[in-house]
């Protein structure tokens, strides 16, 4: 049934895949945040043609499966000359997909700033840069950290999908071990445990952080 010896042996073999997963997750999270911020600002500032296009694009990103978007980046885009490693493809794919969620978070964060804040800033005749940097963004930052942190954890878990476009991350490694040894039980279970061992404490920590941010 369950082979403890084998289970422990697979851990070091999974290590490289795990590292890749972590790298992908960090890069994709950063990408998602940056892109999300860009989308949110473009939509907020209401540039005539661009804002509408971004709006539709973001809806497209949210309304279609991540898997399909990854396949498009992996199979379709290279046909038009842009080629990149599977790793980068995965990072770009996840960055775009999750940027649509981050954009929504930023938009909600900006809208939810009490109107009084804008009024005060105007009354004090602060230049726009100061208004944004010193008053608005810090408050947005505080309300935005929990959801963004949440998505970072999701990115970490969803990175397993990248195994389908041959990125050598955790799930991919587990599958390889399984196909080599014909025993899938231990590798996949251990991989699952690794995902859990990171995401669950992270989620708990995030919840605690959220409580502390809320009380300030």
């Amino acid at each position, binding site marked *: 049934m369950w082979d403890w010896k084998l289970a422990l042996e697979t851990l070091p073999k999974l290590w490289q895949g795990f590292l890749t997963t972590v790298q992908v997750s960090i890069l994709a999270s950063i990408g998602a945040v940056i892109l999300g911020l860009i989308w949110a600002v473009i939509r907020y500032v209401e540039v005539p043609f661009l804002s509408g296009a971004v709006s539709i694009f973001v809806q497209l990103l949210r309304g279609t499966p991540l898997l399909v978007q990854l396949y498009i980046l992996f199979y379709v885009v290279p046909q038009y000359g842009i080629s990149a490693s599977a790793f980068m493809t995965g990072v770009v794919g996840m960055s775009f997909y999750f940027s649509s969620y981050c954009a929504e978070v930023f938009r909600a964060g900006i809208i939810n700033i009490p109107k009084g804040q804008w009024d005060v800033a105007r009354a004090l005749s602060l230049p726009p840069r100061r208004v944004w940097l010193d008053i608005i963004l810090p408050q947005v930052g505080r309300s935005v950290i929990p959801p963004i942190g949440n998505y970072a954890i999701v990115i970490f878990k969803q990175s397993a999908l990248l195994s389908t476009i041959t990125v050598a991350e955790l799930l991919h490694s587990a599958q390889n071990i399984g196909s080599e040894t014909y025993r899938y*039980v231990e590798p996949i279970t251990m991989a699952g445990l690794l995902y859990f061992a990171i995401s669950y404490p992270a989620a708990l920590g995030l919840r605690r952080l959220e409580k502390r941010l809320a009380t300030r």
Partner: protein
Amino acid sequence: MLATYLPYILGGVLVTLKVSFLSLILTIVAGFGLGLSRMSVNRFMRWAATIIVEIFRGTSAVVQLFWAFYVLPFFGIRLSPIVAAVIVLGLNEGSYFSEVVRGAIVAVPKTQVESALVLGFSPITRFFRVVLPQALVLMIPPGTNMIISLVKFSSLASLVTIPELTFRALTVRSNIGQTTIIFGIILTLYFTISIIIAMIMRGVEGRVTTHLGIQKVFSSERPNSLWSGLRKKVS
């Protein structure tokens, strides 16, 4: 060339919808079951439901799907692809939905519960006649996301050989190439389904709120902290 395969690809929509629908049923059942269990006075039920929810939320659907498909057979459980997919997607999404259920029930104003108490309603009557109707309205916006999510995640079923939309696209592609157009088509199909679902749900919300006489919850423009609280839901 593509034209001959077009019906095949379009047929994938039905399979996608079928997988999504079956998963949806399980999601709703699991969502309410787990959500209510976590609010139960029975410590064991709370504890058990919490464990199930945290396990399914702690790893991604892909991992769970592969686990169901590759690992369970070793323990003697052989699930057909469709059963495995529906169970995994249903329980996975159901775990997230259980939080929505809990949040919505808790969000019904305490004064409503008090009114029911004062009038002498039994706890069961109170729940079904007073709390639940009001909670259901609150569940509609996150519920919409949940349904669209299920449609998106149905694409994972392609990984366990279920011939839904994504699977068929890959199959056709390996036969005739024309990658761009094929993926363009399924992208459009998925997008269309999402939009239609969103429109239907807005219609549902409209009818339900006028029927129940409650204020609309579904406004993306209105900063509603209750709404964003319920929106802990993810992708």
